[in-house]
């Protein structure tokens, strides 16, 4: 779950990492009023969870409170990549000397968290990595030993700092580590972490992605996610509420499957045969009938969908539960689009039996089913 910039910065501040003084406003009047608490010049930043906010005009500089009001007015009417701006963050502008990068993410290969630092910042870390790979410092963290302030100082030294600046960076890095661990961040970064003209350090922008699987430890965010206060579409919120992994795409074949790999391979196979998937929907392992029914409901609520391709290979998922879910959806939601169903694996015979009895045909080969779904979509869903 992505956090808003202001949330990410509030977390940093809690760990004594310097962030610019700032205030959150949801309307221009409030923006105007709150700006008076701050020192000009200002930056007014749209609080949206999509990348590329700056290029889309979501960040506006303002020299006076009046300009803040104007900026807020403009931003709060904006949509950035289809997402309405509901709030703006007004903060004091920093006098930048240099932009650095600091983040913590996971390192699959070393099975650990890794701190990534660079004396070049302000652009996406992937861009830094490809433009100036020699400036990237990767510091694996041994979770048994922990990350201590001396580790932080060692990194600061490799970034070229010494003396008081090294000590100060050490404190900031250590703070970021504790913030990341305490908030179960799968990514926490300061980009840029700014060295100011007077040699201090300030986190000018901050990003945090909380591990979805750890949200049970962070009810404050879990609740916000479920209340729809996030970047998600209606279908995505509905999916999240039901523990379904749903991603909307731009095609016309609705896809439901179990297991991310299988669903991705299903999308790939549809594309291979010239079709276009409308979505990714993984019901996960061991989905009961009700969950299958909800999945169907979500996919069918997308008006672009012309055909439905259900691809289930049961392991922990039982085919009979899937079959019952399909019947439940048929009776409750009403399935008006043509369905192609492929169902094999655990309790396969029971599942097929249930569907066959209900006069719903079941296929065995994924490729055959994909080709059939593509054919139906090309005929406009008939």
């Amino acid at each position, binding site marked *: 779950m992505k956090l808003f910039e202001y949330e990410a910065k509030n977390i940093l501040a809690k760990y004594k990492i310097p962030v610019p003084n700032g205030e959150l406003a949801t309307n221009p009047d409030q923006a105007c009023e709150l700006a008076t608490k701050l020192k000009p010049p200002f930056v007014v930043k749209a609080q949206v969870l999509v*990348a590329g906010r700056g290029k889309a005009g979501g960040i506006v500089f303002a020299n006076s409170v009046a300009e803040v009001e104007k900026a807020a007015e403009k931003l709060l009417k904006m949509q950035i990549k289809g997402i309405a701006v509901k709030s703006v963050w007004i903060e004091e502008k920093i006098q930048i000397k240099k932009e650095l990068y600091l983040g913590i993410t*996971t390192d*699959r*290969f070393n*099975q*650990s*968290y890794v701190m990534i630092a660079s004396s070049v910042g302000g652009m*996406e870390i*992937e*861009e830094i*990595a*490809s433009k100036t790979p020699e400036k990237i410092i990767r510091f694996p963290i*041994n*979770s*048994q030993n922990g990350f201590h302030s001396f580790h932080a100082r060692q990194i600061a030294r490799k970034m070229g700092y010494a003396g008081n600046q090294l000590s100060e960076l050490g404190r900031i890095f250590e703070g970021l580590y504790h913030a990341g*661990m305490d908030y*179960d961040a*799968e990514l926490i970064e300061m980009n840029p972490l700014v060295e100011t003209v007077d040699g201090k350090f300030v986190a000018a922008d901050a990003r945090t992605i909380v*591990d*979805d*699987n*750890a949200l*049970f*430890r962070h009810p404050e965010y879990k609740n916000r996610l479920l209340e729809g206060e996030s970047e998600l579409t209606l279908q995505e919120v509905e999916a999240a509420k039901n523990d379904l*992994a749903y*991603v909307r*795409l731009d095609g016309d074949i609705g896809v439901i*499957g*179990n*297991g*991310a*790999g*299988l*669903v*991705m*391979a299903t*999308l*790939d*196979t*549809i*594309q*291979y045969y010239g079709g276009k*998937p409308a979505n*990714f929907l*993984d019901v*996960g*392992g*061991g989905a009961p009938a009700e969950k299958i029914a909800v999945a169907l409901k979500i996919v069918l609520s997308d008006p672009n969908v012309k055909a439905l391709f259900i691809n289930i*290979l*049961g*392991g*922990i998922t039982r085919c009979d539960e899937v079959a019952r879910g399909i019947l439940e959806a048929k009776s409750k939601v009403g399935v008006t689009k043509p369905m192609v169903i492929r169902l*094999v*694996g*655990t309790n*396969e015979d029971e599942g097929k039996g249930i569907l066959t009895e209900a006069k719903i045909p079941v296929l065995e*080969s*994924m*490729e055959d089913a994909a080709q059939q779904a593509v054919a139906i979509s090309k005929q406009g869903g008939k």
Partner: protein
Amino acid sequence: MPIIIDEKTRAIVQGITGAQGSFHAKLMLEYGTKIVAGTSPGKGGTQVYGIPVYDTVEEAQEKHSANASIIFVPAPFAADAALEALENGIKNVVIITEHIPIRDAVNVMAYVEKVGATIIGPNTPGIITPGKSKLGIMPAHIFKSGSVGMVSRSGTLTYEIAASLTRKNLGQSTCLGLGGDPITGLNFIDALKMFEKDTETKAIVLIGEIGGNLEELTAEYVIREKYPKPVVAFVAGRSAPPGKRMGHAGAIIMGKAGTAETKIEKFRNAGVEVAEKPSDVAELLAKLVI
């Protein structure tokens, strides 16, 4: 001898009294796996399909001396279960549970590194040595004993491809799911090393997906070590748009790194055959192992 598990493996099922745990304990027993005990805190003294249940792994070990464990414990408690198995001397642990927090998984792996053990998963279908033993949730009838080693990041896609191999009479030595999470125990390279030593394995199928750089590192390993056995790969996620999380934490692409394209290119450069669609794996393999 196949890898990790065989007919001599003595396993406990942690979380045996849950719906999944009991269901799959029964299937594993039926398959012939030696399930010697189960655990479930608070349910000690009961039985599941004739398997004795204990409150703690410690007690199960005192009475049954297992050498493997399979975990069905719910996500918030699964890391604890894995540590319990490891601390009580079990060296092969399969974690079926999905949705384990990353931080918990990292802690388990750091402990594993210290004590020297093998973790499969989390978020894995498990491992099967067809005809001998199964520690997992895979539908057993799609597998068949033979000489193809399989290792995969994706559960259901493994079944898909294993079933197509079996249909073409290409049996498997051991099939192993690494797990779909960002932090897992065994990786492709570990599995390749084990398959290299296993005389029964003649060729390897490697099933990757978008996200991370394990496939890229594996391709480098194949080149560096002049890996002696033929490898066929499939990579899921060619049609996935970047920056979107696809179903589990493993399948996310950030920018250019971890796309299907880079992975496929790296594999091909390493002499690894890459299948276009799942059903092509069996065909490519048939040519290699004749």
